[in-house]
Each structure stands twice: as structure tokens, then as C-alpha cells.
């Protein structure tokens, strides 16, 4: 009997503190100041990204899938 009393609240706390609770985990649009900084960018060094993509294109014959139009068929 006592166990059931503990299980229910613990489950609820677990739900609230886990990713099920949007209130706790979702970053609101007005809280994205730090995320919008240059240091947070995936493409921090455009030259490095361009060279890497060029290497993939020339050595592996693959192109596209990295924000560039075309799927490698050469038809675009």
C-alpha cells in the first residue's frame, strides 16, 4: 500500500523533470541570444566548410545534402 503512494508521485516528478515537460526544456524564441552568437554556429569557418565539401565532392563523388541544391544526379 505504501509503495503505491510513493510510485505515483515519483512517476509524476519523473515526467515533469524529463523531456516530457516542454515547460522545462524548450528554449523560447526570446531566450535564443546565446544560441545566435557566431561561436554557436555550425558553420563557424566558412572556408573550412567549403574546402571539406569540395573534398567530398571531388574524392567521393558525392554532392548535395549539405544545404546545396542537387542530389548528385547532375540534373539540377
Amino acid at each position, binding site marked *: 500500500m505504501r509503495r503505491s503512494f510513493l510510485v*505515483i*508521485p515519483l512517476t509524476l516528478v519523473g515526467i*515533469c523533470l524529463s523531456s516530457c515537460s516542454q515547460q522545462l526544456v524548450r528554449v523560447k524564441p*526570446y*531566450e535564443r541570444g546565446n544560441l*545566435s552568437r557566431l561561436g554557436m554556429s555550425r558553420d563557424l569557418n566558412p572556408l573550412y566548410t567549403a574546402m571539406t565539401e569540395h573534398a567530398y565532392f571531388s574524392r567521393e563523388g558525392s554532392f548535395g545534402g549539405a544545404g546545396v541544391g542537387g542530389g548528385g544526379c547532375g540534373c539540377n
Partner: protein
Amino acid sequence: MNNLATSLLFLTCIGVALPATAKVEVGRSIPKLAKLVPGAEIPITSGKIVLIDFWASWCSPCRESFPILNELHQKYGPRGLVIIGISVDEKEADYRRFASKMKAAFPLVHDSAHKAAAAFNPTTMPMSYIVDRKGILRHTHKGFRGAKTRAKYIAEIEALLAKED
């Protein structure tokens, strides 16, 4: 006793999971800004059409929107439009730098605690709210799309002015 503890815990969980404030919706009155941003110089809005714009120094479209908001302020200010720009910047210095750079002609408020932002809950940056003379929210604008948004602003403000003059 156990029942009481369980009920309290349950209510706490619900309280955490649910949004704390009532939604700001079209057709309903907006919360009072003076209460949300205490200490800020909020202009008198009673009997005026109010455009509330949420912006941030790190938001590029916000930068583009300021010349248009200045234009609206100059054109419709004398006819009863009040524009309030609410910054959601965390740092005071960012807010001040952006404000002085953009030369806003309309009043700006710094909501560093994000109380106003939490109450209005803007889903994009920037986001603006047009409120009629009775304090009822009439239109919302998500983001800023240059001439398209400007045309919408003008049409909505003109309609509200014509309706309530």
C-alpha cells in the same frame, strides 16, 4: 497525511508542467506592461492604438524593422498610435548599444527578466501586437518581412484609426 503529501506533490507537478500565465490572444485584453516591466517608462496608452514590438539586438529582422517602425511612429503618432519596443536582451549593454545605433524615435523598454516576454509569449523574433483603443489585442505579426509587413501594418492601423476616430 500521505494523501495530503501526494496531492501537494501532484499539484506542484501540474504547476511546473503548465504555463504560469494566461495566454495573450486576439480579441482579449493584454496584460499591463507597467506591472510586467516595473521601473520602465511606459508611455500613456489609454485611448490609443498601441503597437508592441518584441525585439532583440541579436535578431537581424529586428534591425530591418526599426526604420519602418520609426516611419509609422512619425506618420501615425499624431493620430493616436503609440509604438513600444520591448527588448528581450539579457545584457543591458547590448540593449543600449542597439537602441543608440538604430535611433528609435519611439519608446523602448528593456525586459531583461523576460516577464513581459513570458506573458506575451512571442513565437518568433521579432513579433508585434497591435492593440485597439480599448486595450483589446486585434492583430499579431510573426517575424518581419519588409514591405509586406509594412503594408499590413499600415492597412491594420488605418482600419483601426478609421473605425475608432
